[in-house]
């Protein structure tokens, strides 16, 4: 037992606060928008140059001039505004975005994040991820706790090239929720049916209490 992708997204959605401007990464973070709690207004930024990102379009709404940072076709909302990429990253670096929810390949106990490159294997680029983790108010990582080989993606130190150093505030995985604190990681909660011991066992990093 553990959380599935949608449960992880739903848990991540509880990080949101009313009035916040938020950037959601590709993958599980995108699903977070399906679980925004009632009564809470959150505006989604798409770093290619849009605030107020709406859902995917219908066939009729499809517009080649309207895509998100994952290059998917999307729609606009009543509060939407468009701007250029320099302005977009100005607001990101300037700390105007309250939170980014991102995927990761590895996170270290110091909050280092690696999510853009596997040397010799995967060379796609960092896109806007380095700017986001450096600039936004709070960085929450949502990812599977282990990779396909069953190894912990939470480590004492990252082995892959970093996206940012000491940038992650909270990690939400299929096994639970951990905060980056002085000296290591602190368990905030465990997923349904996951014990504290199982979570500690699966985490190759210092857990502090």
């Amino acid at each position, binding site marked *: 037992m553990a959380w599935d992708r949608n449960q992880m997204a739903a848990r991540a959605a509880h990080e949101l606060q009313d009035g916040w401007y938020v950037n959601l990464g590709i993958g599980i973070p995108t699903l977070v928008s399906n679980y925004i709690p009632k009564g809470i207004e959150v505006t989604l930024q798409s770093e290619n140059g849009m605030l107020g990102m709406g859902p995917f379009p219908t066939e009729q709404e499809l*517009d080649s001039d309207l*895509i998100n940072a994952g*290059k*998917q076709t999307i729609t606009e909302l009543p509060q939407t505004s468009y701007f250029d990429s*320099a302005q977009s990253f100005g607001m*990101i670096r300037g700390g105007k975005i309250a939170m980014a929810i991102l995927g990761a390949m590895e996170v270290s106990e110091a909050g280092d994040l690696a999510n853009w490159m596997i040397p010799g294997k995967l060379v796609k680029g*960092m896109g806007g991820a380095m700017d986001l983790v450096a600039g936004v108010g709070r960085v929450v990582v949502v990812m599977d706790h282990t990779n396909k080989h069953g190894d912990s993606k939470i480590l004492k130190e990252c082995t892959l090239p970093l996206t*940012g150093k000491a940038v992650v505030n909270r990690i939400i995985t299929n096994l639970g929720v951990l905060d980056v604190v002085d000296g290591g990681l602190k368990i905030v909660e465990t997923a349904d049916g996951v014990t504290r011991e199982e979570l500690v066992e699966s985490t190759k990093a210092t857990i502090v209490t």
Partner: protein
Amino acid sequence: MKKVFNNAEAALSGLLKDDIFIAAGGFGLCGIPELLLNAIRESKVKNLTFASNNAGVDDFGIGILLQTKQVRKMISSYVGENAEFMRQYLSGELELEFNPQGTLAERMRAGGSGIPAFYTKTGVGTIIADGKEHKDFDGETYIMERGLVADISIVKAWKADETGNLVFRKTARNFNPPAAMCGKVCVAEVEEIVPTGSLDPDLIHLPGIYVHRLIQGDHEKRIEQRTLREVK
């Protein structure tokens, strides 16, 4: 001083040479100067350096210049979705300088705004910071990034008037304004040129001072990821 040219070839005449540095607008395949890229392909100039967030796909966008091996170097933030790019890069035929997306946009804006360098927190502690000047401000460490000035910039807008005032549409704006700013000469392609005076002066996204040459033409505007929602 007439800015409007008949077609992409005419608009680029005299500007294209081997080894030049070109800044291009667009994000993915959205808002890319497709007509000007086609004309650059036809011109057969080579050894080009491009500052562009992406490299297009194999057969659209800057990808068409990779097929013909006209590009020597890319300055980009993300080059996934392009198999030929990856092949040339891994074989050493193509040089690649990764820039974080916001750093790339700001480098263009800075270069076009008389700012030779600025400091940013983006990339501190990563390989992007290697070899760059580090400096502390108010207890935090930043790295210095340089403004970019391109020999020419090529951009795509929705509408223009005859004096080069540009209006963009939705997220097709993206890198086009900063790319336009950083070119010593900027060539713009638009879907429609309207008479001067028919755009609201309060609602011009990029003033004509940044735009030196202008063409109107039909655009394919290919969609990279057609994502639809189910209608119940």
